[in-house]
């Protein structure tokens, strides 16, 4: 009877006493399958898009990963970390920057501990750790130079290769005969670090040539009879040591101990007693027969460990020149010529590298670079956070007050202190011996630390100027408001680079006393005015959303315009524009790259100096700019997601305060 009530065509209906049990939704609408259906395969078109997209992504990532693991030469990054982070800042004074970084991390940790919300903390923590890891270049000097390899052929040997060494360093050379035709089909020999020296053509080209001959059958690598002389020369070209390799098919090792801190050369000579006879076959020059009694045939790798060649860590040349004197001119016509020869005869490593080799030669050096900083940064951060959090949760309200007051004072002191730490004292003897820090010229500041200085200084200085401009623009007094409008609109209407060029070229004319102002200061003025104009517009937006009633209420209470702005309008307006100001900060952070065009070597400028100024790194532009891009991305992504979170949570907006 009751069954019939379930029939839909009934006019009247009474539900059964017990409600039917809930059923699960159809299997294909829930779970992973449901998710896939809904998100990827909801329609034919959608499926098609999914398939195409997957294919494109797969291809892209395949290329990217194979390239970055097997081909990219990340040593352009690994070898120049210090330069990128702190520029030409004197090595023995880097502790000052490290101190600043530690202070920065400590104060952030403390602030997070005392006031921080948990979710926000995650972002700020990671930001700080990364900055710290990058700024504290404690590990920078510890990297061992990767082995240097050369191909020795019956026709080509190594001319003098320049390197620097400290007293007691051991230089190890190994001559590794290539006596297996099978090797010719592998790229294995190119795993590592390939360089060429003056007097020889590129190892890579030679090797390709040889391979081609092996394949063509015109060259037999098993026929090995290569006799080499390995020489160590001092800076004046005097042979310090000399060893001979035997023409046998086995690995021969040599070891030299360096007598002094100086420049040295390594030179490998073929034994001249055996000179091959050459003929050109199909346009390829071939040693067709051994000449005299000692036939000089065969190919070998010469591998050199433990030297820092000029070309492998070239960016330190300035430092080294300071320590070891000028680059010697022995065996080159002139010093410049010699240097050019050393620098320019390099080829890019093109062979594929195994993943293991990637780990060892590329990733490991990088990790070594940052691991110490990372650990120190984490430790400082956690300690500070623990202190702050402890104070926050402790029962006595005083301890929180003390710690938060300390943090505020710390931040206030931090900026001028950092500036003093960075610049030092003109006359170090005039201050307390404890503070005796020699002056570091601003022209030596560079790298990421300069980027951060530029960002922080112009942000902090631009902030009050922005407020004044915004208030001025809204002023009832026409002359003041017209002036502010003109200033803001002109600055916003022209490209930043124009303003920076103005700052560089025209500001010195403003007064005689300004003509020798440091470039950094001039550019900071330009950046600050630029930021102030943009800030002014943001703050004006904040001022506009303050209801008129707030001002009226304040006036009705008898507060004068100054107090009204100070106590009522600005606190609310500024709170409302925090997210917008954050994104403006991101924008400024990115815009600081422009100072590299006008001659400051901040992060990007430094990279440019490295990859364009130094011949050895010129083939590695992709790696360098990718790295720079990633660092910029990480920092600004964190900043902008912070601003987005602030915006979404509505923190700082008046709306939230209004909500009951």
């Amino acid at each position: 009877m009751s069954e019939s009530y379930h029939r839909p065509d009934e006019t009247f209906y009474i539900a059964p006493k017990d409600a039917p049990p809930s059923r699960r939704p159809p299997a294909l609408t829930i779970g992973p399958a449901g998710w896939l259906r809904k998100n990827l395969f909801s329609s034919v078109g959608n499926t098609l898009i999914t398939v195409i997209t997957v294919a494109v992504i797969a291809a892209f990532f395949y290329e990217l990963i194979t390239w970055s693991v097997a081909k990219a030469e990340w040593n352009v990054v690994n070898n120049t970390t210090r330069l990128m982070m702190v520029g030409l800042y004197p090595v023995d004074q880097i502790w000052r920057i490290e101190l600043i970084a530690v202070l920065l991390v400590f104060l952030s940790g403390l602030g997070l501990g005392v006031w921080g919300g948990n979710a926000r903390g995650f972002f700020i923590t990671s930001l700080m750790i990364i900055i710290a890891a990058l700024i504290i270049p404690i590990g920078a000097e510890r990297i061992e130079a990767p082995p240097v390899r050369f191909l020795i052929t019956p026709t080509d040997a190594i001319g003098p290769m320049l390197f620097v060494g400290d007293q007691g360093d051991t230089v190890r050379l190994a001559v590794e005969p290539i006596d297996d035709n099978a090797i010719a089909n592998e790229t294995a020999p190119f795993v590592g670090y390939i360089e060429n020296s003056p007097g020889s053509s590129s190892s890579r080209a030679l090797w390709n040539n040889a391979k081609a001959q092996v394949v063509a059958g015109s060259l037999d690598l098993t026929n090995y009879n290569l006799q080499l002389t390995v020489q160590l020369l001092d800076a004046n070209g005097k042979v310090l040591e000399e060893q001979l390799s035997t023409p046998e098919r086995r690995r021969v090792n040599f070891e030299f101990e360096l007598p002094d801190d100086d420049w040295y050369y390594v030179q490998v000579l073929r034994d001249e007693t055996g000179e091959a006879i050459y003929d050109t076959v199909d346009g390829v020059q071939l040693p067709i027969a051994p000449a005299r009694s000692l036939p000089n045939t065969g190919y070998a790798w010469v591998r050199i460990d433990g030297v820092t060649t000029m070309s492998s860590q070239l960016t330190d040349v300035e430092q080294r020149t300071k320590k070891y004197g000028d680059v010697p001119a022995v065996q080159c016509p002139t010093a410049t010529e010699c240097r050019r020869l050393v620098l320019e005869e390099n080829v890019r490593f093109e062979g594929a590298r195994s993943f293991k080799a990637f780990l060892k030669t590329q990733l490991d050096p990088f990790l070594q670079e940052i691991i110490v900083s990372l650990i120190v940064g984490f430790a400082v951060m956690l300690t500070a956070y623990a202190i702050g959090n402890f104070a926050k949760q402790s029962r006595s309200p005083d301890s929180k007050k003390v710690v938060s007051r300390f943090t505020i004072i710390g931040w206030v002191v931090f900026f001028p202190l950092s500036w003093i730490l960075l610049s030092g004292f003109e006359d170090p003897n005039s201050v307390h011996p404890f503070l005796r820090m020699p002056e570091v010229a601003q022209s030596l500041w560079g790298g990421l630390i300069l980027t951060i200085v530029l960002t922080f200084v112009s942000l902090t200085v631009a902030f009050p100027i922005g407020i004044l401009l915004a208030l001025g623009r809204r002023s009832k007094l026409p002359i003041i408001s017209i002036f502010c409008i003109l200033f803001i609109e002109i600055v916003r209407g022209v490209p930043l680079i124009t303003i920076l060029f103005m700052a560089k070229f025209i500001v010195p004319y403003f007064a005689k006393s300004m003509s020798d102002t440091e470039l950094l200061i001039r550019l900071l003025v330009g950046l600050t005015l630029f930021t102030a104009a943009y800030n002014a517009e943001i703050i004006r937006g904040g001022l506009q959303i303050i209801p008129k009633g707030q001002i009226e209420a304040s006036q009705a209470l008898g507060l004068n315009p100054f107090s009204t702005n100070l106590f009522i309008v600005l606190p609310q307006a500024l709170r409302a524009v925090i997210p917008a100001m954050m994104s403006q900060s991101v924008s400024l952070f990115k815009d600081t790259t422009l100072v590299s065009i006008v001659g400051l070597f901040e992060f990007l400028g430094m990279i440019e100096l490295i990859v364009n100024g130094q011949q050895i790194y010129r083939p590695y532009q992709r790696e360098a700019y990718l790295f720079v891009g990633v660092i910029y991305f990480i920092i600004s992504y964190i900043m902008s997601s912070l601003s987005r979170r602030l915006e979404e949570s509505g923190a700082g907006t008046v709306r939230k305060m209004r909500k009951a």
Partner: protein
Amino acid sequence: MSEQSNSNGSGYIIECEDVNKWFGEFHVLKDINMKVKEREVVVVIGPSGSGKSTLIRCINRLEEHQEGKILVDGIELSNDLKNINAIRRETGMVFQSFNLFPHLTVMQNITLAQRYVRRRPRRDAEDMARQLLQRVGIPEQANKYPGQLSGGQQQRVAIARALAMQPKIMLFDEPTSALDPEMIKEVLDVMKELARSGMTMLVVTHEMGFAREVADRVIFMDSGRIVEIGTPEHFFENPSHERTKLFLSQIL
């Protein structure tokens, strides 16, 4: 006290003579003549857009009038900085939308002007604030933010904030219009108590019950002019002007 402070000795604390005001070309106040005695409660009613709010905003110079004379406690309203400051100190104002400062706690809302305008020590200002919060019936809310209070509570805080300046005159600009019905009463109660204590009050409101019960006189305004002034009894029972009759017939 009133006779001493009142410089012209007329016994009126607010005097408007031929006050005219324009917003651009729009004539909002037309020949307003009105006087309020000390300790008197005057209610201003009228349809919206009749210039009621503008009138009381002119009295503490939130708006500037262009013609005529407004005297508050014998001080003429003009561009004289001293006079403006003096008048703002004499008058407290309560707004329709409360206009509490959302970024400050209730306590800070009440003490801010005391400390920076009256230059009272912080402790005195806080004592005063606590007394006033007691008086408006919400002593326990001192450390909350306005956003955490109900509308009625916010309006009572606003009243306390105005009273903290110890004004001679309180101006109310539709203090209950933005409130839910059940909250209106708590605000009106505070206002009634204030009226009983002898405060001079000029109230713009649509609460006819309040006008009837508390007002000494009622002013009816329409399209920028004062149509009728009378006692509540006379005004509600036996209005003289046609416009008043029409208005009352529509709302009652």
